[in-house]
């Protein structure tokens, strides 16, 4: 028995060493390792500790609220083209925003790519993002970026109500988001209240309709027995499987499912003009003020707005934001989506109240 354990221990130790080397985003935890522990460097000026990794330059750290499968191919292409390594941290947008806020000046992040405008707006409001170079901001319509130039939209998405066509008749489909607070929808729909898009949607509602109406809506929803999910994907899955009648999600999830599975008994429903449920939001990216590689960071954002990347996003059914990039298959053009006119920049101001309201309503 002792011998077996000794052998196992040796294997573990070997694995520990080799695991660290094989992994390009290595950290051995030693204080001298500069790869991801930028904090020590950012608080002292300019001094960059000697690199111990295999990469020729220090890796860029990306905090991404977008899915790994979504982002990974783009990052790899970026590295292939520029030679700049990227360490990506994938988590919920809200969680990343909170993390950046908590990290403060010690944040190892260089770029933050959020799923929605509100959270990144909140970060911008705290002064944690630097101003983007104008050549980047010129690429995107001013509707889909921060008015102060701290973040720029990479892609856009529409909020929809996805529903199961077998379980929900055409005339049953809610015309406005307010219908979801009514008795006929009791227990039949799902929401993801911690998800960035939902939060952004609430910030939009706050801007347009004010606190009282928003509170009323949230409380109405909470009282109507919604099924609470952590993210949009599971909602769509449940709807497709017929375990749930409908839910508030972003437009592209269902399209991805259809591409994967073929025909499914589900459809997206866009709310009408002026309804908060039809808010079109941009996913925003910005450069952290504490970053010690703002130029490389800008390169990355530039790359996200490059034609190849935007085409990639298009193939995953999101709306690209650079001129002439096209429209996802079978979807209305961006310009033709229902209009819910709120300034995405302003959503940063209503972020705190939105979060508090969501929490107070009991949804979170």
């Amino acid at each position, binding site marked *: 028995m002792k011998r077996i354990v000794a052998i196992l221990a040796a294997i573990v130790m070997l694995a520990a060493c080799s695991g660290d080397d094989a992994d390009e985003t290595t*950290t051995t935890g*030693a204080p001298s390792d500069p790869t*991801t522990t930028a904090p020590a460097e950012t608080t002292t000026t300019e001094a960059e500790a000697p690199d111990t990794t295999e990469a020729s330059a220090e890796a860029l750290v990306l905090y991404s609220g977008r899915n790994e499968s979504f982002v990974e191919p783009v990052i790899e292409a970026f590295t292939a083209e520029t030679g700049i390594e990227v360490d990506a941290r994938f988590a919920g947008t809200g969680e990343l*925003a909170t993390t950046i806020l908590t990290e403060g000046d010690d944040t190892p992040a260089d770029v933050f790519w959020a799923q929605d405008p509100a959270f990144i707006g909140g970060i911008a409001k705290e002064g944690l993002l630097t101003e983007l170079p104008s050549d980047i901001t010129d690429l995107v319509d001013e509707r889909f970026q921060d008015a102060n130039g701290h973040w720029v939209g990479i892609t856009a998405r529409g909020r929809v109500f996805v529903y199961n066509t077998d379980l929900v008749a055409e005339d049953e489909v809610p015309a406005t988001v307010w219908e979801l607070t009514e008795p006929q929808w009791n227990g039949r729909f799902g929401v993801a209240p911690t998800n960035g898009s939902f939060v952004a949607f609430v910030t939009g509602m706050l801007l347009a309709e004010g606190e009282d109406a928003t509170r009323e809506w949230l409380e109405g929803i909470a009282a109507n027995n919604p099924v609470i999910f952590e993210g949009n994907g599971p909602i769509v899955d449940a709807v497709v499987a017929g375990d749930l009648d409908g839910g508030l999600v972003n437009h592209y999830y269902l399209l991805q499912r259809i591409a994967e599975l073929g025909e499914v008994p589900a459809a997206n429903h866009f709310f009408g003009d002026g309804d908060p449920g039809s808010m079109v939001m941009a996913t925003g990216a910005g450069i952290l003020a504490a970053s010690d590689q703002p130029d490389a960071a800008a390169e990355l954002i530039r790359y996200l707005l490059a034609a190849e990347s935007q085409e990639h996003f298009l193939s995953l059914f999101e709306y690209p934001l650079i001129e002439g990039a096209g429209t996802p298959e079978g979807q209305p053009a961006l310009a033709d989506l229902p209009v819910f006119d709120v300034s995405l920049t302003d959503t940063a101001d209503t972020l705190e109240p939105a979060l508090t309201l969501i929490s107070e309503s009991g949804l979170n």
Partner: protein
Amino acid sequence: MTVVAPPRGTRTERKPSPVRGRAPVALWAMALVAVVPAFAPIAYLVWSVVRAGVTDTGGISAGRLLELFLSTAVLVAAVTITTAVLGTATAWLTTRTDLGGRGLWSTLVTLPLVIPSYVGALAMLGTSGNSGLMTEALRAVGLPGLPVFAGFWAAWGALSLWNFSFVHLLAVPAIRRMDPALEEAARGLGSSRWRTMFTIVLPQLRPALLSGSLLVSLYVLSDFGAVSLLRYETFTRAIYAQFRGRLDVTPALFLSGVLVIVALVLVWAEQRSRGRANLSAAHPTRPPSPVHLRGIPRLTAYGFLSTIVIGALILPLVTLVWWAARGMSLGNTVGSVIPELIRSVSVSGMAAVVTVLAAIPLAILTVRHAGRATRALESITWSAYSLPHLAVGLGFLVLALRFVPALYQTVLLLIIAYVAMFLPQALTSAQIGLRQIGPSIEEASRGLGSGALATLRRITLPLLWPSLLAGGALVFLTVMKELPATLLLRPTGFETLAVRIWSASSELFYTQASVAALVLVAVSAVPLYVLVARDLHD
């Protein structure tokens, strides 16, 4: 491991070894170093709550707090009771009856420990609902499908199925240590089987059952993955939701602070009720005569054991395999799993080694130099264990940023957090081993001229080795499965298997999730074997 001792029953009334005066300072120094990581996050959480003012709950109303408290309490109570009953029943059936293949059943019933509860929950989801495996199977034979397993009942089932094995593992040696003479005396006095069970057997098993129940209830309190997947609102789920969905750490910290208090109360209650647990090393001289089961009771027993094994082991594994196979046949990529495996194994191994080393001075202090101060020290290590791992991770995250930024997002910090969280697992094992060794052997060594350190090296550690190994195996197993703290503290890009399973299932990459889950389960079988082989086939 047999301890050389005179036959039971002839021991005279010798007093327990008197307190050996002050323990060496070096011992205390080592023990304190081991305990500081455990203490730090608790201290920080309490301090930050106090600093923010108890009134700043970050928008969480008293009503909501009560709601969370009740829903968590109900789940904890239900799972604790269920696992106590299940674990005792399986332990009894596999040690005291004449069922066939008892050894095999006992092993099978312990195997679910390789399945983390969030993987089990994942499998539950994959089995139920319109797209689930069981639904398809049932529909194929014309039966209606299963509704989605979610909410309280699902959480109750999941947490019970994948935790009752802890109770089983603790109950089996306890049952073996019982003196059958007591039960025979009771039966001779006219007590029925059931009455004997309740009045004679269960009280003897009380210390083991209490320890097991505490483990389980703390785990439920801390569970994050399963209740999230199964959508049942508990404190931990709410903490994470607050962390994800707010721009401020305060509400998450506040809830964590409340949870700390609840957990500490549980620990205190268990310490009180355990009293003087007498961990004697000797086995009864005469093995008890097995209970003969015939007819219906026998069939029921087999049925019971089978159901548990199927539900906790076979069905989830089959579901995962089915998902993986189906996904791969549809052309889905499996993606990155091997690097995660290597990372998981290496970090779990390192954590296990460090934890065991840290446990040694603590065990010696608490067993050989017991006193009020050492009990306080022990309570601190248990407190960190009982905190939800999410809270501990949060505490370390903020602590590191504030005081030691160089540690932030490093593997070293991750290991420190693991040690803080799982020290009691290694400690308990070391304590039990140390008690079995008994002070007279160490005194004999000292009387023969070996100083304290030489005695430790030549006598204590070699004899303690099996217990240390068991403790290390348990820590290894637990760290492999750990999710929330790893999510928070990991260096960017450092995904373990657990993190990979979690992110894959949140991105609905069930193929990758199931493959990663199967790899995790397979690798976890190794430390489990080490644990089980020692405890069950004693």
